[in-house]
């Protein structure tokens, strides 16, 4: 397996050097962009396995870089790396499609752990399982490799997290998936979503797959415990 490629976008030379030393020490291949424009020059969809992104950058800032990558349909995991630590920034970062968030000053061990956790989740997403890369159930079809799905309203794009969550459901048909399992499999250490965020994912699935989103037969909410996926469709919760 070839080395994981990481795009590091950081304008502070010393911080970049410190991170690069450690990432390379872990066997990752790192490309360094010192501002947002350079990051967009280096970025090629599908080339990098992870993007480490500072928010405060000269020129176009990190949030904008993230937006542009996502608008190019890039599904790479993105981790923000910044001195900003207000809740709003955190929410905004996650809202525009970041996967995790770490604030400066940070502990390098923690950063490496989180990066590995992201890779572990990605690896799990890529594992060939019973579901294979295209999975069909009564409500529609999910194509993990293309980050696409087809439901009752036609084809739609899936985000990285939606893929992870769908895969989690598909691998555990008929089982109650606890919140804890979802957090562990889908979200990063620091990016714990509110239960509303998870609900929003479920709502989107229902909207696209359920014949009647108000009375789900595939994606059930198990009050107090979590969620349950019934591929064949069932009204019994």
């Amino acid at each position, binding site marked *: 397996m070839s080395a994981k490629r990481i795009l590091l976008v950081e*304008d*502070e030379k*010393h*911080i970049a*050097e*410190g*991170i690069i*030393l*450690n990432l390379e*020490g872990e066997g990752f291949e790192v490309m360094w962009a010192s501002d*947002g424009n350079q990051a967009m020059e280096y970025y090629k969809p599908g080339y990098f396995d992870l993007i480490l992104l500072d928010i*405060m*950058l*000269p*020129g*176009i*800032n990190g949030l*904008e870089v993230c937006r542009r990558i996502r608008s190019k349909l890039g599904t790479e995991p993105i981790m923000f790396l910044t*001195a*900003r630590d207000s809740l709003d920034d955190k929410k905004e970062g996650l809202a525009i499609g970041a996967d995790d968030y770490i604030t*400066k*000053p*940070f*502990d*390098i*061990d923690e950063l490496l752990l989180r990066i590995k956790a992201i890779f572990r989740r990605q690896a799990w997403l890529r594992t060939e399982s019973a579901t294979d890369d295209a999975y069909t159930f009564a409500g529609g079809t999910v194509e993990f490799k293309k980050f696409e799905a087809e439901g009752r309203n036609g084809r739609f794009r899936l985000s990285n997290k939606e893929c992870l969550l769908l895969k989690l459901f598909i691998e555990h048909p008929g089982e109650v998936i606890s919140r804890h399992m979802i957090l562990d499999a889908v979200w990063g250490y620091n990016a714990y979503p509110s239960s509303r965020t998870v609900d929003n994912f479920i709502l989107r699935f229902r909207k696209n797959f359920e014949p009647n989103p108000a009375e789900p037969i595939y994606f059930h909410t198990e009050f107090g415990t979590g969620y349950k996926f019934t591929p064949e469709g069932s009204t019994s919760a």
Partner: protein
Amino acid sequence: MAIFSILVVLFVAQMSWWIIFQIRNSEDTKAFMTETYAGEQQRLISLLNEHYRAIYDAAGAAVKASPNMMSPHPRIADDAVSGLMRESEILGSSLADSLYFRIADDKETYILFLNRDYPGKFLGLGSPLIFRPSPKGELMRPDWVTSDIITPNPAKFAEIERQEHKHLRMFLMEGSFFIFLIILGTYLVYRSLQRTRQIRQEQLLFVHSITHELKIPITSIGLFIDTLRRRQYEPALTAELVPKMKDDLSRLNHLIDNVLQVRKLSEKQIEFRHDPIDLSDELKRFAGQLAGKFEAAGGKLHTKIEDGVRILGDIEVLIRVWESLIDNSMKYGHAGTLELTISLQKHKDDAVLEFLDNGPGIPEGMEEKLFEPFFRGDIESKKSVPGSGLGLYLAREFVRRSGGQIALGNAAEGGCIVRLTFAKIT
């Protein structure tokens, strides 16, 4: 702010209402006074008529008693006349300044009005009040005193008008003054609120900027220490990273220093010297020291320094400013290899010192803003002009207080140009 606006509107409305109320009140007062006067006039008219009737009756009796009476009979109605006069004094009417009558002959009977200095002058025949004997020799009813004859004293009315105008003027002036006061007060309160908000925002920005700037070297030092720990303090890596950590420490120190300078400047704790300086010599020495640092970093330094340029100033402060400008150029003033040109020349009475780099220059319209404390260019990233946001602010304060001026601009051939102008001495 909304509550504030509502209060102001309420205040002004209340004030306007008060003015309108007072104006209407004043009109009412005038109407009341006029009515009272009209009433008074009527009362007087009827009173005069009563007296008049008494005189008339007395005259009638006299005519009956002595039909051939031709001469004036001053005593006939003396009492009545004096009563009439007393009443008439109330209004100072033109009618009854004084009154007398006489019976002229058997064809016509006159009642004449006399002047107040009775029984001196006649008002004259043909006065409106004429008795005509009837064919039977009886007196006709006189024309009663009417409001045409008794007119209120115009002076009195003028007085009422004047009073009313005086009140109106007073209310209008007082009202406008109050409204002016309210608006002025509102403006002052608003301005002070704005100022408070601005100060709060500046403080927030300050804290935000400073924390961000502090976190960068702290992060990088932490990162280097972690790295060394993870690599068991490999000597080669240690040798590489320790100087970088020292750089970070000096960056921290520089930042703290700048913050302290800003505080001292704002508290006017820094004294500026005004010594004669040979700017040419000082600049050459400065450039000489700089050249080594530049070459080490792979840059090029050019100088065009005219000899014998002298100014008054504080050389330590100036060198500090130069260093900070050079710092900016070295950090951000170049795309590839840094080239910097330092030039000094005499221009009329001025010494003009310029630092020109080969960087991207500064964004249009930012020439002034960049000197504001903590201003860092483009709002979105808050970081197009990196650093603490204090460097240029301090530079300008230092230059100004040394008696010079500093301006930023873009050179025609590209790059940022910083121009320092001082008055030269001989």
